[in-house]
C-alpha cells in the first residue's frame, strides 16, 4: 500500500487549540462514555418498567408496551436522531422550541443524543427484561401469590431479583451496543470519539492514523466493559444455574 504513515501526528497540536490530537481523541472518548452512560440510565429505567409491564396480566398495559416497543424498534437510529434534533423543537410550542434551538454546543446536541439513544436502547432492554421474566418458571409467580403477596410484591421480591441476574449477559451486550451506537450522534454534531477521528482526518489528512487510533480506543473500552461485567456476573450469580446465554444478532 502506498501510504506514508505518520504516527507523530498524535503529538501535533489540533487546530482548535485545545492541545494535541491525542488529547482531542481522548476527550472524544469522554463524550462517548458520557453519552452512553447517561443513555444507559434512561434505557435501564424505562426498559425495566416497560419490559415488566409487558409481562403483567393486564391486556391494555401489555398492548401499550408493545406499541412503544414496535415504534422505536422499527425506525433506524439515525432517523430517530434527526427526529429529536431537527423535528421535535419545531413541533413544541414556539417559545420552548426556540429556547431548545439556542442551547449552546455541545449541550445542544448532547441532550437530544442522550434522549434518543436512551429511548432507542430502552426498547432493547425491555425485550431482554421481558424474556428474562418469562424464562422463570410459572411456579415462582404462583408461589408468590400463594404466600399472599400482591402482584407488585411478587415482582419486587420474587421475579425481578431472579430475572435481572439471568439477564446480565444480554444486558452487557446491550451496554456495549450503546457505546457503539453513540457514534451515530456525530450526525447531529456531537463530537464524540468517531466524530473526532473524522474531524482529525479532515484537519490533518492523516486518514488511517486517526481511524486506527479510534479503533484501538473502542477495542480497549470494550475489553474493560467485558472484564467489569464478568466480575459483576460472578458476584451476583444465582447458585445452581448453569448460566444464562447471551442472544446473537443486533447492533
Amino acid at each position, binding site marked *: *500500500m*502506498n*501510504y506514508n504513515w505518520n504516527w507523530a501526528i498524535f503529538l501535533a497540536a489540533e487546530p482548535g487549540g485545545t492541545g494535541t490530537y491525542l488529547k482531542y481523541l481522548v476527550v472524544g472518548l469522554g463524550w462517548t462514555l458520557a453519552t452512553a452512560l447517561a443513555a444507559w440510565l434512561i434505557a435501564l429505567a424505562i426498559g425495566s418498567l416497560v419490559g415488566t409491564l409487558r409481562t403483567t396480566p393486564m391486556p391494555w398495559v401489555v398492548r401499550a408496551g408493545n406499541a412503544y416497543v*414496535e*415504534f422505536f*424498534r*422499527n*425506525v*433506524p*437510529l*439515525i*432517523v*430517530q436522531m*434527526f*427526529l429529536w434534533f*431537527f*423535528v421535535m423543537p*419545531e*413541533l413544541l410550542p414556539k417559545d420552548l422550541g426556540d429556547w431548545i434551538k439556542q442551547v449552546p454546543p455541545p449541550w445542544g446536541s448532547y441532550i437530544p443524543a442522550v434522549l434518543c439513544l436512551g429511548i432507542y436502547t430502552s426498547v432493547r432492554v425491555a425485550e431482554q427484561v421481558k424474556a428474562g421474566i418469562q424464562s422463570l418458571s410459572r411456579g415462582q409467580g404462583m408461589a408468590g401469590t400463594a404466600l399472599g403477596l400482591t402482584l407488585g410484591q411478587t415482582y419486587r421480591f420474587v421475579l425481578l431479583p431472579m430475572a435481572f441476574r439471568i439477564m446480565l449477559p444480554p444486558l452487557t451486550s446491550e451496554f*456495549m451496543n450503546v*457505546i*457503539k*451506537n*453513540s*457514534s*451515530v450522534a*456525530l*450526525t447531529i454534531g456531537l463530537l464524540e470519539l*468517531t466524530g473526532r*477521528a*473524522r474531524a482529525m*482526518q479532515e484537519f490533518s489528512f492523516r*486518514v*488511517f492514523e486517526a*481511524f486506527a487510533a*479510534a*479503533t484501538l480506543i*473502542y*477495542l480497549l473500552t*470494550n475489553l474493560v466493559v467485558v472484564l467489569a461485567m464478568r466480575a459483576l456476573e460472578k458476584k451476583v450469580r444465582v447458585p445452581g444455574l448453569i448460566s444464562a446465554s447471551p442472544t*446473537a*444478532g*443486533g*447492533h
Partner: protein
Amino acid sequence: MFSGYDFDVIQRSAGYLFREGMTFTLTLTALAMVGGIFFGTLLAMMRLSKFRLLALLAGGYVNLMRSLPLVLVIFWFFFLVPYIGAWIIGAKDPVKVGSFLSCLITFTMFEAAYYCEIMRAGIQSIPRGQVWAGNALGLNYWQTMGRIVLPQAFRNMLPVLLTQTIILFQDTSLVYVISATDFLGAASKVANRDYRLVEMYTFVAVVYFVISFGLSTLVKQLQSRIAIIR
C-alpha cells in the same frame, strides 16, 4: 401541530425519493444480505474448523467487527477501499470507487460478522451424529456440510437471518455519513434544499416504520409456520 405542515413537498419529491433513494437502499440491502450470508457462512465454517489457525483468524475478524461502531467501519472502508483496489490491480495511486460499491463492500464485510454468529449457532444446533453418519457414508467435509448440515442450519436459522436483514435494512441509512444518496440521504437533500426538515424526516420515519414493521410481522408468521416441533 400539523398546521403549516407542507404535504406538497413530499408529493413533489416522492418520485425522486423512491426512484433514487429507495432503490439504492433496497439494492444495497439485498446485495449485502446475499454477500453477508455467503461470507458469514464461510466465516462460521472457519470458526468451527479443526484447523486452529483458521478458527483464530475468523474469530478475530468477527470479534473485531462486532466491537466497532458501524459508522467507524463505514469511514474505514470508504477511505480504505481505493487503496485496496490500487493494491489489487497494481496501480500506483488509489483508484476511484463509487459510493455504492464502497457501501456494498462495507456492509457485506460488516454484516458477515453478524451473520457468521447466527450461522455458527445454526451449525452447532445440528446433532453431531449427523456429521458422523455423513462420514460413515463416505461423504467428505464439503459434501457433509453442503448436503446435510448447512441446509438444516439455514432452515432453523431462517427467521433469525431475516431479522438480521431487517436490522441491515435500517442500518443502511447510516451511509448518510459519507453523503451517499440512499432513502434518508435523498430525503435530507430535499429537506435542506426546500428547508422542509420536519416534513421530510417524519415522512422518512413513517416509511421506514411501515417497511420494517411489515417485514418483521412476515418473519413472525414465517417463524410459526416453519417451526419444527421437537
